[in-house]
């Protein structure tokens, strides 16, 4: 029996009972469709979280202060509130960690900020000229804080577009104007480009000032709240993380590294943690969707068993005129695989439409990967084989004499 004969036989037997075949296919369509839609929602969520983590910079290590852990009851203050990192630590990192591409210490705190007639409460970040490169900030108008500004303790500020909107109104270019932060006047020298809200504190709603100025006039001390270090590439990050840890452990005279008073966060660790959460979420969603796929598969088996019974005489005849067991089982397997394959095709279309509708109406990002489509086809073909195998075997093992007598 050639492939085209098999195809013709399959086509003619499936079209005999179009409604039944259609309903059986529908079961698979819903199963595959919901798996595709769920996986695409999960993957969309995953990639949007990853993008927002990537938007804070690339190949980034973040050194943050943490309370030194001692024996006994742990009472931990909020992250970042401890003051254990200093300007000297940052300088030492710049000096000793030669593999670092750029280092940007920062001090940040929320202040009330006023312009003539308006005021807002926002994050004020004292930092250095390396910051835009490390943290993916781009300047739209004017310029960022320069090394000269830092050295001269200049009272200049670069504001984010949200701050600009709040204090001066949108579409204005308030460069050269003055804002007042914590009763100190700063001259605006630049405006950053809008990045859109990212999950980890919008960088649009920030004011950047020179680190030295922030320490002298705003904080009044030389502690820093975060040191951002950019590595040359992903491969050196783990090494660098270790070097930074070792350096700070020795600078802070900590004997047991387990008790360190700071944390070095690797950006890929953050991504991995977030990804593991979203992939559990994706697995959960697709597991639920798989149940409907399983039910669809049982529908296929049910239909095929009915078909085998209905066509007992036909099977007997085919055997009498020389069909082997394998000819019969191939024919029935082909029918069930054809059902699930069609279900797979329409299921992918349905899933794609569902994903589209979800991103359109529920504004959840969705992403359909080729992998999930391939997987859907693989799974649907496998369902055809698994659930078609038993009915096909039953058909093939019918005794031709009894089958011909069957009424």
């Amino acid at each position, binding site marked *: 029996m050639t492939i085209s004969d098999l195809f013709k036989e399959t086509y003619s037997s499936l079209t005999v009972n179009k409604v039944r075949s259609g309903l059986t296919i529908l079961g698979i369509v819903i199963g595959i469709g919901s798996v595709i839609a769920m996986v695409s929602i999960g993957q969309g969520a995953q990639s949007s979280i990853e993008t927002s983590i990537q938007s804070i910079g690339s190949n980034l290590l973040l050194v943050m202060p943490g309370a030194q852990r001692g024996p006994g009851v742990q009472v931990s203050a909020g992250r970042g509130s401890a003051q254990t990192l200093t300007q000297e630590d940052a300088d030492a990192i710049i000096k000793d960690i030669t593999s670092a591409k750029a280092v940007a210490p920062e001090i940040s705190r929320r202040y009330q900020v006023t312009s003539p007639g308006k005021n807002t409460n926002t994050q004020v970040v004292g930092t250095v000229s390396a910051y835009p490169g490390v943290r993916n900030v781009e300047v739209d108008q004017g310029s960022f804080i320069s090394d000269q500004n830092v050295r001269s303790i200049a009272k200049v500020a670069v504001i984010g577009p949200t701050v600009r909107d709040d204090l001066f109104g949108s579409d204005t270019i308030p460069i050269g104007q003055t804002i007042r932060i914590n009763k100190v006047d700063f001259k605006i020298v630049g405006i950053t480009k809008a990045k859109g809200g990212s999950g980890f504190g919008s960088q649009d709603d920030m004011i950047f000032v020179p680190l030295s100025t922030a320490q002298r006039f705003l904080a009044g001390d030389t502690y820093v709240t975060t040191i951002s270090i950019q590595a040359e590439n992903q491969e050196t990050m783990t090494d660098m993380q270790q070097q930074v840890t070792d350096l700070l452990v020795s600078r802070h005279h900590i004997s047991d590294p387990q008790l360190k008073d700071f944390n070095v966060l690797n950006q890929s660790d953050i991504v991995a943690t977030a990804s593991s959460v979203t992939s559990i979420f994706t697995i959960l969603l697709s597991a639920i969707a798989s149940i409907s796929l399983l039910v669809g598969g049982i529908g296929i088996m049910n239909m095929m068993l009915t078909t085998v019974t209905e066509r007992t005489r036909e099977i*007997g005849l085919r055997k*009498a005129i*020389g069909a082997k067991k394998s000819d019969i089982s191939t024919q029935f397997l082909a029918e069930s695989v054809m059902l699930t394959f069609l279900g797979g095709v329409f299921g992918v279309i349905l899933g794609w439409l569902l994903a589209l509708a979800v991103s359109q109406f529920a504004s959840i990002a969705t992403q359909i990967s080729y992998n999930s489509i391939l997987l859907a086809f693989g799974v649907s073909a496998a369902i055809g084989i698994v659930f078609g195998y038993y009915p096909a075997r039953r058909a093939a093992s019918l005794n031709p*004499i009894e089958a*011909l007598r069957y009424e």
Partner: protein
Amino acid sequence: MIDCKNIGKSYVNGDVETVVLKGITFSIKSGEFVAIMGPSGSGKSTLMHILGALDTPTSGSYHLDGHDISKLSDDELAEIRRNKIGFVFQSFNLLSRSTVLRNVSLPLIYAGVPPIQREERAAAALTSAGLPEDRWNHLSNQLSGGQMQRVAIARALVNNPALILADEPTGNLDTKTGEVVLGTFQELNSEHKHTIVLITHELYVAEHADRIIHIQDGMILEDKKNVRKLIVHNHKA
């Protein structure tokens, strides 16, 4: 060509053993037209299943065209049926949703004959079976009983079998149409030298063959020559 030696067949159902055939011996030469006749329960159907390689005997040996087929596996039997035997059933057993041509070429599909040859051979078989050409592309459920049986005969002929086995071929037809079908068998035998074994319970039907083997209670009661009752072709099925 057909050589049956001491064929026995028994079925075991639980503890009860039912003996259906009790040592049947006969042979049929190529080109013969034989009727196997017997009342229901005589074992003629079981004998037909063995002759048709649908079943194997419990004892004895059966040679068809030189092959001992009494001890073959299911798939080997399928191969014998495909190459050496053509069946005509009482209830036609056509695929109702397929065309006449497709029904006739079905055995060739399983035999792996390429599509172009299939058409030619199916057309030749239909011509021999006497089905008018304007019916060839009809669906088989649009035909009359006599036409259906002609399609079934064509299907039996198409793989050029050594043996055509007809199991009560007139059982579902009225007398007139039945005669036409029997006439077709006679024609195939005398003009195309096909070996035909006709299984029936009616003496009237059996009398159209050249030889009648009478079976009763699983044994041969009588095996005699017969002067065939000729069918005059004056009507179409």
